[in-house]
């Protein structure tokens, strides 16, 4: 019994010490170069991007308290890093039209296949979940918007 108590105390100690080692937060702001700053998006689409994508795909992550506790915070930091590497909506304005169109196509594919938003993320961040109708709306927007971007170029 005493052994259990000691083990428990050690684990609690490790947990507390872990809290002093926190990854850097991704909070430099969405920025003037972001898709919201550069494009006029339909309101529902902007809301979907904000709630379901920007946490990992922009320079502005919203961290609920449970995302700030180690070791979860490290997992979150890893997801954000990988997400931004794939697509960063804060850099939207630096992309040329071909890159924008390509990204829109990928967004449609990822959402359609259910890869994105990542199921484990949605499980914990419930408001990030996209309904079937929202998913369809988002996909339709990627198609329409990429055609608009192309038409503007011509």
């Amino acid at each position, binding site marked *: 019994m005493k052994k259990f108590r000691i083990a428990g105390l050690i684990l609690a100690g490790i947990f507390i010490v872990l809290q002093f080692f926190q990854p850097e937060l991704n909070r430099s702001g969405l920025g003037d170069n972001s898709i919201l700053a550069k494009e006029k998006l339909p309101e529902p689409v902007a809301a979907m991007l904000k709630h379901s994508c920007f946490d990992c795909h922009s320079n502005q992550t919203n961290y609920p308290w449970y995302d700030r506790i180690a070791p979860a915070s490290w997992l979150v930091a890893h997801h954000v890093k990988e997400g931004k590497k794939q697509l960063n909506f804060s850099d939207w304005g630096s992309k040329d039209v*071909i890159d924008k169109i390509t990204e*829109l196509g990928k967004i449609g*594919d990822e959402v359609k*296949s259910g890869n994105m938003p990542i199921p484990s993320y949605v499980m914990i961040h419930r408001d990030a979940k996209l309904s079937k109708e929202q998913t369809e709306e988002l996909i339709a927007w990627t*198609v329409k918007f990429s*055609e608009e971007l*192309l038409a503007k170029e011509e």
Partner: protein
Amino acid sequence: MKRFLAFFSMLILGIAFVSFTLSQTGSPSAQMPDNVKAAVDKACFACHNTASQNAKAKEKLDFSTLSGLAKAAQIGKYREIGETIENGEMPPKKFLDNYPDKKLTAEESKLLIKWAEGEVKNLMKK
């Protein structure tokens, strides 16, 4: 003699079956230069066609229907083809472990990247 006949008819049936399957699978629909088509047939088309068993692969890219997509969608796909090969993401490593001969040579990769970028430029001009 009977045995020979049986063997012969089996052979004919086999050939008929194979050619039927091939005609079902078809070939990339976009007009490609022969050397590009050869590389695509070798390393991509088996999974990226309409009749493919690999649902994920054909959802992402289907060479049989690529040329029928809207222009913006085609541009995105061609750009992605180039990027994917450039990053060495395709063909997938697991697939290459089973079929090492499907690996694109450096020349083939270069050829496909150049071709895909060319298609992007053509589509942008149209």
